[in-house]
């Protein structure tokens, strides 16, 4: 069940890291309505992360970092708070530091377009936990995508300034889009077994959705090439950007200071 564990971990880490970044918007959004909407998205993803990390830990407990014997930390928290950056398997798109509102809109659009396509297929997973997470997640992520698409078009057609910012966000994030569709060995085996979804198989569906949103915003697909990996690996292999370890320094600080703490 090692491949199920790493597969769940990747889906869970995506949700966790994305949630952490979006939650940074709390009390910082352009207006109350967007503050609430972004918090909602962060909450939904956090919920998905908890279930997926727990699934991962149950599938292969050797992934869970060792803690003192008397530590009451549950496995999904041990995974979230006691792994180092090198052990996170999220795609790099999710970890980029918080930018402006155009950036978060674009990031949520790209992420949820991809994730929705994956979850839609994952609903028929033979793993009942994954199937259940996907069934619930489809509704949530569809809402995230709609929120992001609506704002994406609004910013694209709003003012010169908003269009300039949106384009800058899109060009900045575009190099991270292809990584989401990379197949890993685990993915293929799991897909063949009817448990997981091979990311490459949802590429066309995701691209179609994105093209529609781009067209509504009177925009072309951007040009920048994909971001190189590091030593042949990307986020899924634990090869991240410099931003992730800094994000984790904050996220894990209280938990690591009190490894025997009860919360």
């Amino acid at each position: 069940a090692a491949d199920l564990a790493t597969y769940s971990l990747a889906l869970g880490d995506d949700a966790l890291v994305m949630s952490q970044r979006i939650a940074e918007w709390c009390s910082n959004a352009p207006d109350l309505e967007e503050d609430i909407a972004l918090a909602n998205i962060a909450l939904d993803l956090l919920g998905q992360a908890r279930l997926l990390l727990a699934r991962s830990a149950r599938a292969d407990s050797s992934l869970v970092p060792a803690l003192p014997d008397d530590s009451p930390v549950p496995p999904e928290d041990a995974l979230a708070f006691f792994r180092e950056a090198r052990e996170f398997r999220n795609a790099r798109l999710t970890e980029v530091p918080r930018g402006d509102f155009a950036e978060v809109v674009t990031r949520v659009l790209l992420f949820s377009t991809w994730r929705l396509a994956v979850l839609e297929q994952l609903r028929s997973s033979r793993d009942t936990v994954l199937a259940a997470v996907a069934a619930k997640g489809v509704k949530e992520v569809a809402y995230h995508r709609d929120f992001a698409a609506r704002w994406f078009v609004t910013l694209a057609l709003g003012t010169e300034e908003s269009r300039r910012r949106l384009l800058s966000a899109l060009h900045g994030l575009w190099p991270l889009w292809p990584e989401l569709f990379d197949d890993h060995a685990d993915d293929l085996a799991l897909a063949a077994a009817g448990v997981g979804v091979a990311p490459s198989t949802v590429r066309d569906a995701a691209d179609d959705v994105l093209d529609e949103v781009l067209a509504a915003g009177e925009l072309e697909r951007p040009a920048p090439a994909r971001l190189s990996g590091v030593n042949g690996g990307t986020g899924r292999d634990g090869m991240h950007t410099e931003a992730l370890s800094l994000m984790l320094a904050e996220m894990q600080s209280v938990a690591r200071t009190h490894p025997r703490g009860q919360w």
Partner: protein
Amino acid sequence: MLQEHFDATIARNDRIEPRDWMPDAYRATLVRQVAQHAHSEIIGMQPEGSWIGRAPSLRRKAILLAKVQDEAGHGLYLYSATETLGVSRDELTEMLLSGRQKYSSIFNYPTLTFADVGTIGWLVDGAAICNQVPLCRTSYGPYGRAMIRICKEESFHQRQGYELLMTMMRGTDEQRAMVQESVDRFWWPSLMMFGPPDADSPNTARSMAWGIKRNTNDELRQKFVDMSVPQAEALGVTLPDPDLRWNEERGHHDFGQPDWEHFMQVVKGNGPCNAQRLAHRQRAHDDGAWVREAAMAFARRSEQERATTERAAS
């Protein structure tokens, strides 16, 4: 005639509604009070918000994020209530940022440890509930109805805060010390949340006559102390007041007075976080200006397109 109708409604504890006539002073007092409450919700997102990123378990992170989100929601209802009094959210935001309207002074204290998340839930939300439950029966309809919803959520937050402290008290020695230290810091500011002693609160009488307020500051403060003492015992923390003891005769706890001079300093803007809180709000507001402009431009554009389409169709 109008005044009589208004007085009669108040007298029979009935609600004034937006379409009803009301005295200018009543309207102004309400606007000030509801706006201050709304601002408090919005500014109150900051002290706890800074711990969302560091919450030490996924469950606590979700609870905290949901709570801070609820505060934004409360701000939203309350700004809507002021809109029924003819004042827009934009105007009130301007008043907040320019310092002409206040927010609760409790949010001018810093959150220094994760235990503060629990203490704010227990004591600060607890005090807020004491203040707010009577406001569910306030004379202005939209405000009272907003308060009913808010109070329900606030008591949920209070229970969650208390439960966090309870859990931490079952943890390590360091965690217990953290809880006690947090309670030491928040106890007195919580007592100050009820406002100055009745003798120094000139507006209370009129607000009570109008049914905007339902209890005096000192009554509510007493209620809060009486409620908190057994909770502190159950928790296993000491409240930092050497004068705190049960008074059999009064059937209430006696307790010491907060440092009101310090309180006035904080109200006047010299609290530990006043400048920080307003600067944060101002920055978020400024950073969002281009987004709000884009949304308006897009709405105008869509409107024009619709008009063009309709003309073409007609």
